[in-house]
């Protein structure tokens, strides 16, 4: 009885997933517990582990989409079963998710033994071929000694820089060729579509952070009482949520021919990752205390860095805040790209001491830059400036939040 490889339901809104990469070839032996397929849904990459050991039979190819519950592969117990499965006409099998969990216990009698041969994953093979890596010298760290991508990458990193004539394209030498896949591809499509489909304008300015810095110092001093370390991001989320409540048009989406103004205020906070970026969402930020916001931000950021975000964590946002200052302080502005289908995004820069004029005098104040990109199809300049003015008012004089 072959084991199923099914698309799981990872979140409330998840209806389908894209198959990013089969980690084994058709007919390969896969070990129970090893990662057999990478899928991607809502910008989350998810590893599916084999629920049993056996020979892989692929039903749905890479780069296709499959709905939740669809069986995309089978693991045959024996080679004979594999041959039988291969001969069957292509069929669509669905399971109610959860059904596929229970797998028959290990085969009674002799288990099919993995062959003594060298084994390698398709991606590792492709890369090894590209770089002419001597396979005899590679130690396979995959299941059963299989050679996997990491092993090839390690070999590439340690090999001496032997002069390699590079591929030349349009007169330029190629240093590396990376297929556009997974998170990178999702980001590429998202960013491009956002700019192509909306009318983005960015208004930029400065915020005097004197009062806010004092406020935060006070909060940090009481960290043990408050229960958490409040960051500037936490305060931004808190204050922006308040202003969105006052100016609901900025908390909306243009869907088809309708502007939907959202009741919920869900603020996304962009997190930079090695492979790209992701935006976990703090739901109902307007109803949360600063402490609750702080805890949410910390939990979500950690999950993001560990690759453990679920689709529910990154969907449903109505406004996004992105911290440009995280990459290094400085007087910097950026035309941040709106996170569709929202209508605005607030980018905050680093905080740096600058000379400013107060009451006719030149004084030194800690100044933070900001860039607010808004969709001019929905929001006109006047509203954008009103929104930002109110945000700045609250940031520069935090006490005004009290009423």
């Amino acid at each position: 009885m072959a084991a199923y490889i099914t698309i799981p339901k990872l979140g409330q809104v998840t209806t389908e997933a894209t198959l990013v990469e089969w980690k084994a070839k058709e007919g390969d032996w896969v070990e129970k517990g090893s990662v057999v397929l990478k899928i991607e849904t809502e910008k989350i990459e998810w590893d599916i582990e084999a629920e049993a050991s056996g020979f892989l039979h692929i039903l749905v190819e890479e780069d296709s989409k499959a709905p939740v519950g669809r069986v995309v592969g089978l693991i045959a117990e024996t080679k004979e079963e594999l041959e039988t499965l291969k001969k069957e006409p292509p069929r669509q099998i669905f399971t109610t998710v959860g059904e596929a969990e229970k797998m028959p216990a290990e085969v009674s009698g002799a288990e099919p033994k993995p062959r003594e041969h060298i084994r390698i994953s398709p991606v590792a093979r492709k890369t090894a071929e590209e770089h002419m890596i001597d396979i005899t010298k590679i130690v396979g760290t995959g299941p059963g000694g299989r050679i996997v991508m990491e092993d090839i990458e390690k070999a590439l990193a340690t090999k001496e820089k032997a002069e390699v004539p590079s591929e030349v394209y349009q007169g330029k030498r190629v240093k590396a060729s990376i297929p556009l896949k997974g998170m990178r591809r999702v980001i590429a499509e998202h960013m491009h579509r956002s700019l192509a489909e909306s009318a983005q304008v960015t208004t930029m300015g400065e915020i005097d952070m004197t009062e806010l810095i004092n406020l935060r110092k006070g909060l940090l001093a009481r960290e043990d009482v408050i229960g958490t370390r409040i960051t500037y991001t936490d305060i931004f989320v808190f204050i922006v949520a308040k202003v969105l409540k006052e100016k609901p048009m900025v908390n909306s989406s243009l869907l088809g021919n309708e502007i939907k103004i959202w009741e919920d205020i869900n603020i996304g906070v962009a997190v930079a990752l090695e492979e790209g970026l992701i935006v976990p969402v703090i739901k109902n930020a307007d109803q949360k205390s600063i402490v609750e916001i702080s805890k949410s931000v910390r939990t979500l950021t950690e999950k993001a860095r560990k690759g453990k975000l679920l689709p529910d964590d990154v969907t449903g946002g109505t406004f996004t805040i992105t911290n440009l200052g995280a990459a290094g302080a400085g007087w910097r502005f950026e035309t941040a790209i709106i996170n569709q289908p929202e209508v605005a995004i607030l980018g905050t820069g680093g905080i740096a001491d600058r000379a400013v004029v107060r009451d006719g005098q030149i004084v030194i104040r800690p100044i933070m830059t900001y860039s607010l990109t808004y969709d001019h199809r929905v929001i006109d300049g006047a509203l954008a400036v009103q929104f930002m003015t109110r945000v700045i008012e609250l940031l520069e004089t935090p006490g005004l939040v009290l009423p």
Partner: protein
Amino acid sequence: MLCVVYWLGLVGYKEAYHLQRKLLRQRFDGEIKDTILLLEHLPTITIGKSGKLENVLVSQAQLAEEGISLFFTDRGGDVTYHGPGQLVAYPIIDLRQRGRDIHQYVHDLEEVVIRTLSSFSIGADRDDSHAGVWVKGEEIAAIGLSIKRWITMHGIALNVNPKLEHFSFINPCGFSNRRATSISKLLSQNVPMEEVMHRLIVHFSDVFNVHIEWDSGILVGSCP
């Protein structure tokens, strides 16, 4: 037409590969003439584009013990073995000037080998379903090619006196029931590599209708 021939001696698979890539580019740009690289490889098993690892019958440990390297490569065909005692010829030829006929090219390569063997009184034939040269069902020369923008690379591997036991480590060209043979085995005597090489080039010149020029000025492993 002119064709320049280089004898490289014993070289690694990777180094020869990179040299071919460089020459292919130069040939495409018209910077050099048709070229043939003649060489012997260090013990190496290579797996072509349609090759399966299952046709490598031993473990990495055994390969390491015998000092055999293993590469995936971009030529057509399945698994093959190269080693000292095997004459490898890599013609880098511009097929744009030869009617862009790949089938004819393969046929001509086989013809070159068949005539060369004939001059040693060895009767060899083709197998219409599979490129290569056979003597009584045993493979004496493997052919695997890659053609990039109508310039050829990879080519022929002719067994003069290689270590035939090494062939038992693979299913040559994917065949589990065919064996490999060599000139020395068939003639029961050692034939010098130089002799085979020269006859091969003479027949290449005839079949391909080119004027040969032997050159010694090429360095493996030096690249722009």
